[in-house]
């Protein structure tokens, strides 16, 4: 792996850990990898600490971008990619592990819905509401 790939892995694992910590803090049970908040907090700390320890084990990785280092703009793009992948992984994985959660929840306010249900359920419910609204507004009436 080159430094860019290792950086992406650091960000991905670190973000997964932070998402678990944040979900445990805010009580977003539908975003926890397991139903237990304490277990998810421990997993979150382990992921963040482990990723940082692994990446910086041999020092600060102080390389110029002309000699194998990562330029500022590339760091930004890799970080954004890492966040996107971590969100995707967390939402998909936790939607599978929490599949039995409640389905009759108000999902219109966004993230708070994840206190009761999973991400995939909240998103599909919101999308289906928009789809129904679109059909109602564009329905063609017959003049008879």
């Amino acid at each position, binding site marked *: 792996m080159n430094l860019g790939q290792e950086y992406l892995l*650091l960000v991905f694992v670190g*973000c997964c850990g932070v998402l678990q910590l944040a*979900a445990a*803090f805010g009580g977003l049970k539908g975003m926890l990898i397991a139903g237990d908040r304490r277990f998810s907090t421990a997993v979150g700390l382990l992921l963040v600490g482990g990723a940082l320890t692994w990446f910086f084990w041999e020092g600060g*990785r*102080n390389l110029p971008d002309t*000699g194998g280092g990562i330029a500022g703009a590339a760091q930004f793009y890799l970080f954004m990619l890492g966040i996107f992948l971590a969100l995707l992984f967390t939402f998909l994985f936790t939607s599978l592990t929490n599949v039995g959660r409640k389905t009759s929840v108000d999902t219109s306010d*966004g993230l*708070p819905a994840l206190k009761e249900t999973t991400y995939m359920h909240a998103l599909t419910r919101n999308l289906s509401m928009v789809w129904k609204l679109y059909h109602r507004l564009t329905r063609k009436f017959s003049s008879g």
Partner: protein
Amino acid sequence: MEAISQVDSQVFLWINGWIGTSATFDRVIHWVVSDYLVPVVCSLTLLGLWFAWRNGEMRERHQRGVMLAGVGVGLASAMVKASNLVFFRHRPFDSYEIEMLFYPPTDSSFPANPVAVVVAMATGVWMANRRIGAAMYAAAFVYGFSRVYAGVFYPLDVLGGALFGAAGVGLAYLLLRRIEPLPTLALRVARFLCVA
């Protein structure tokens, strides 16, 4: 101006002169000064703030703070780039025979771009959450100090970087207020997609 520059150089040489006194401290600085450690930790903190809240009011405040920090980082970086086009200051290692704990960068010494970015993040967060913002300011201070100690910047470059970072967030605040209701609309879209 000459006198200020001389004092700046004297303070730099005094701080940088401590290299080699403690191998453990140098080792710690070698980590802290990295292009990755402090920026990654601060960015992870922003991500955490976006998702971590206990009530609606706290959620709104945190997410607007993260938005402010993000736009502030962009504006601060643009201001640093613009400054580099009209003003170039040589690095300390160009003028003095010094010990270094970092690679020798080739861009302008003033203002310190990495410090501007971290201070912009800290300022955005401070507007939303004083305690976490203060912790991030402390991280920015340590980061700036490590860069001077490692021989990469003069103290005035770090101070300049911090001012650029804070000014970037100030401008971002005005900009986001000016383009309202776009930020609110962006939050609503994010809420519809269940990511806010």
